[in-house]
């Protein structure tokens, strides 16, 4: 069989050389065809990728969060320190003539502020030259170019963003708003043939290769601006041939579909220019703000050259970390700018002669407020999807008052250091949290989640739930006063208390001073924060009723109906405590604490605005009556340190939990309520009760922001009370006068005491004055 096959095989087989060649040719053709198909498919895929990413919204734009704008108006209480601080925090600079937007000047009390144009929640406002006079800490006169004005808002401070997971931040800017000098400098530095190539530049690559061969390594890239954009926008930093080829194809496709101007605008907004903590700084708009504290349009020639120089290496040429290196790079770029006639020789010499000055990186205008931001984010998520907050470039106007926040942070940090100095074993162990709100509107003006004010982390103001100690006592006294049988002069026994629990467990609270004080007026129980008197009172009026009042005042957490809650064995966050005291401070109006004022789109369209809402849950007269007790705590009780330092009607309550693990203070004046907590994260005792641990923070903060005394009560009358707590008739000289709601005027009175004198004597003294 094999012999037969051999000749046939020989006769049908072509010459030995041509068989592999044809096969090779066929295979080659096949591969080429398949390769072309694959390449085509790949290009279609790349094309789709390029167009999809470039046609719609190019970037996930984080929501920008702003503090409240400072509203200036005649009569406003405003210290020069606050005004100057707020201007600096909004990145305004002192300048002799305040001639450019973003600058200010002052001589004595006469201020000139050149406010930038700004898109407020209710619309864009153009730049304004503001003139104001400060006299005795108030605005006496306010005017702009049009004359006297009743109200002008300052640009609000940026307080943070709600970032997507990659934490990229940028300020989008249109090409027509970019200084032409910057565009020109960028092109001559990075890609001189930008307007003539098709996405890749053969001459550029050749030039770079030559330079690299000469240097014996990679010293120059041949990438065009388009390639750089493609790399940053679509690809990774991986340095492989495949990626380089992909970059080249995508650059060609990008140039095919989009104009040079569109590509340039995208580049200007995409380019990476540095890092600030978790935030990646992208684009020249944000770069200008970040490095120089001003909008792109306000940059000097030298600053423009510095920014352009950063493109080559944001970290290597960082003007803050490597000022000399950055300055050399700036001067080099200035030289290139002069060579290309973008600037004159005189301009180059002038710009190069100026020192490289950058804005303080940790300045208020660029720092974030983690605790407040977290709360704002939580509250925004009631109305907005997180995805939209992270991507749509929304503008969020909040209630944060930077001056109040600054004062609170300063006071907290300083006081914790002082406390730790007194107890070195506590060093770096104490923590704090605080909430400050406006009394009438429930707007959150300041929020502190930690002594490390700029770190994102555990937010104690929202999430640390700690026993509130004696901060609960006003609610026990409120329950008693509301009942109608008790008043501030009623007697209550401060003797030892023993309550048997369900399993026979005894609850025997003791006073802070370990003493019993016998029968005391109700008022003393509150102002001296007597545990035994308060526990007895609470047991008498009923624990359940106290719990009801806690919820009525705004406590949402579950409160168990145990005797120990009467002395504050209730775990609440500082924010919840603030909510409860807010109701007391606002004469019984329960208003949800709020951090958001308005939200607009990136284009300025108002999406939502928020205003006061709530409901009256207590009779204002009852609240005034309770407030009297809280005023006495400050005037003459456990918070008398406040009364001594600020001798005016103010209300407050100290709080300390068992074994001094938590120190609290809650207090209010006519404008603000402040709740302060100090303690340890490990919940160990820490030696300082509320009056020494938390109160001083409140006191220093309120000193700095200024206090307004509580107004006189409107609905209370004075009635004398005898030693037994019974009401006495008008005119008795004896007895102690206490305030009462007018409804008590009709209550039964006892006769004057033996030494009580008739009212006639007092009347005669009035008549004496008149005649």
């Amino acid at each position, binding site marked *: 069989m094999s012999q037969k096959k051999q000749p046939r095989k020989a006769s049908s087989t072509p010459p030995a050389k041509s068989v592999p060649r044809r096969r090779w040719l066929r295979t080659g053709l096949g591969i080429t065809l398949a390769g072309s198909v694959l390449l085509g498919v790949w290009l279609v895929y790349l094309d789709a990728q390029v167009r999809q990413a470039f046609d719609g919204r190019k970037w996930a734009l984080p929501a920008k969060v702003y503090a409240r704008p400072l509203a200036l108006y005649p009569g406003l209480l405003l210290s020069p320190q606050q005004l100057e601080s707020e201007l600096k925090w909004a990145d305004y600079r002192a300048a002799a003539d305040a001639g450019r937007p973003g600058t200010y000047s002052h001589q004595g009390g006469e201020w000139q502020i050149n406010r930038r144009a700004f898109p407020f929640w209710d619309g864009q406002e153009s730049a304004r030259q503001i003139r104001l006079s400060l006299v005795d800490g108030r605005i006496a006169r306010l005017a702009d170019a049009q004359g006297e004005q009743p109200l002008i808002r300052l640009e609000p401070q940026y307080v943070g963003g709600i970032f997507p997971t990659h934490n990229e931040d940028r300020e989008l800017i249109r090409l027509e708003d970019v200084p032409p000098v910057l565009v020109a400098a960028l092109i001559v530095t990075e890609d001189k043939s930008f307007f003539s190539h098709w996405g890749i530049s053969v001459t550029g690559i050749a030039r770079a290769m030559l330079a690299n061969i000469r240097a014996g390594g990679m010293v120059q890239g041949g990438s065009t601006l388009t390639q750089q954009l493609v790399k940053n926008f679509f690809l990774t930093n991986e340095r492989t041939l495949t990626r380089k080829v992909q970059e080249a194809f995508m650059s060609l496709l990008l140039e095919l579909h989009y104009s040079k101007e569109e590509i340039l605008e995208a580049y200007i907004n995409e380019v990476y220019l540095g890092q600030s903590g978790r935030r990646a700084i992208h684009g020249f708009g944000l770069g200008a703000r970040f490095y120089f504290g001003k909008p792109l349009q306000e940059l000097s020639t030298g600053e423009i050259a510095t920014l352009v120089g950063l493109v080559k290496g944001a970290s290597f040429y960082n003007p803050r970390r490597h000022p000399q290196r950055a300055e050399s790079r700036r001067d080099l770029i200035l030289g290139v700018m002069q060579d290309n006639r973008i600037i004159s020789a005189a301009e180059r010499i002038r710009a190069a002669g100026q020192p490289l000055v950058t804005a303080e990186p940790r300045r208020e205008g660029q720092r974030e407020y983690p605790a407040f931001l977290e709360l704002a984010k939580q509250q925004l998520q009631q109305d907005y999807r997180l995805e939209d907050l992270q991507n749509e470039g929304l503008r969020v106007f909040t209630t944060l008052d930077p001056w109040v926040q600054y004062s609170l942070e300063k006071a907290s940090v300083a006081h914790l250091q002082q406390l730790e100095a007194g107890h070195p074993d506590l060093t770096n162990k104490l923590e704090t949290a605080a909430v400050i709100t406006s009394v009438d*509107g429930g707007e959150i003006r300041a929020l502190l989640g930690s002594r490390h004010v700029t770190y994102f982390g555990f937010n104690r103001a929202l999430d640390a739930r700690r026993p509130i100690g004696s901060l609960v006592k006003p609610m026990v006294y409120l329950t008693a006063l509301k009942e109608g049988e008790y008043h501030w002069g009623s007697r209550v026994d401060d003797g030892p208390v023993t309550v048997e629990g369900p399993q026979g467990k005894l609850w025997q609270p003791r006073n802070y001073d370990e003493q019993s004080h016998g029968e005391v007026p109700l008022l003393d129980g509150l102002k001296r924060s007597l545990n035994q008197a308060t526990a007895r009172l609470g047991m008498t009026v009923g624990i359940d009723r106290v719990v009801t009042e806690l919820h009525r005042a705004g406590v949402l957490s579950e409160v168990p109906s145990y005797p120990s809650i009467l002395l504050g064995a209730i775990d609440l966050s500082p924010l919840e405590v603030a909510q409860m005291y807010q109701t007391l401070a606002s004469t019984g109006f329960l208003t949800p604490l709020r951090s958001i004022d308005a939200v607009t789109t990136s284009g300025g369209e108002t999406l939502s605005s928020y205003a006061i809402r709530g409901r009256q849950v207590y009779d204002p007269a009852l609240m005034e009556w309770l407030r009297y007790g809280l005023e006495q705590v400050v005037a003459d009780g456990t918070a008398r340190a406040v009364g001594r330092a600020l001798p005016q009607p103010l209300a407050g309550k100290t709080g300390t939990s068992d074994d001094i693990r938590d120190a609290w203070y809650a207090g209010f004046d006519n404008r603000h309520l402040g709740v302060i907590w100090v303690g340890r994260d490990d919940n160990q005792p820490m030696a300082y009760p509320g009056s020494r641990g938390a109160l001083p923070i409140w006191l220093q903060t309120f000193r700095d922001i200024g206090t307004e005394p509580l107004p006189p009560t409107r609905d209370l009358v004075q009635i004398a009370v005898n030693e037994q707590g019974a009401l006495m008739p008008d005119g008795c000289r004896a007895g102690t006068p206490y305030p009462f709601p007018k409804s008590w005027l009709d209550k039964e009175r006892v006769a004057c005491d033996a030494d009580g004198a008739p009212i006639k004597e007092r009347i005669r003294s009035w008549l004496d004055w*008149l005649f």
Partner: protein
Amino acid sequence: MVRLVVLTALLLLAGCSTQMVNEADLQTPVYGSEHPAVISLMQDAEQAGGEQQWNRALSYLDQARRIEPRNPYVLVRQAEAYSQLGEGETARSLLQRARIYAGDDAQAEMMIRTVESGLSRSPVITP
């Protein structure tokens, strides 16, 4: 004796200051304030209300409220704005609040009653 005369005169003046209010008074805006910023914001709110932009009106009024937190005329206008937005309960709460601060102010009381009586009817904020 002079003091007695002065006191009597003051008392008489105080009596005379009690205003008689009628519906016609409500046709002209009453701001309950001489504060230029508050008046300016209330006028902005009037304009927004006139354009049926009640959320915007509410926000202007809220800014006025921050300057004068206990001005019943601001609160009653906010109640009116809430009423226009269909938030009757909130409107009622703010009217209650306005009444607390109105005290003996008959004109404020009249405005409160007007809004109360027709929570969803014609606005009190006159453009």
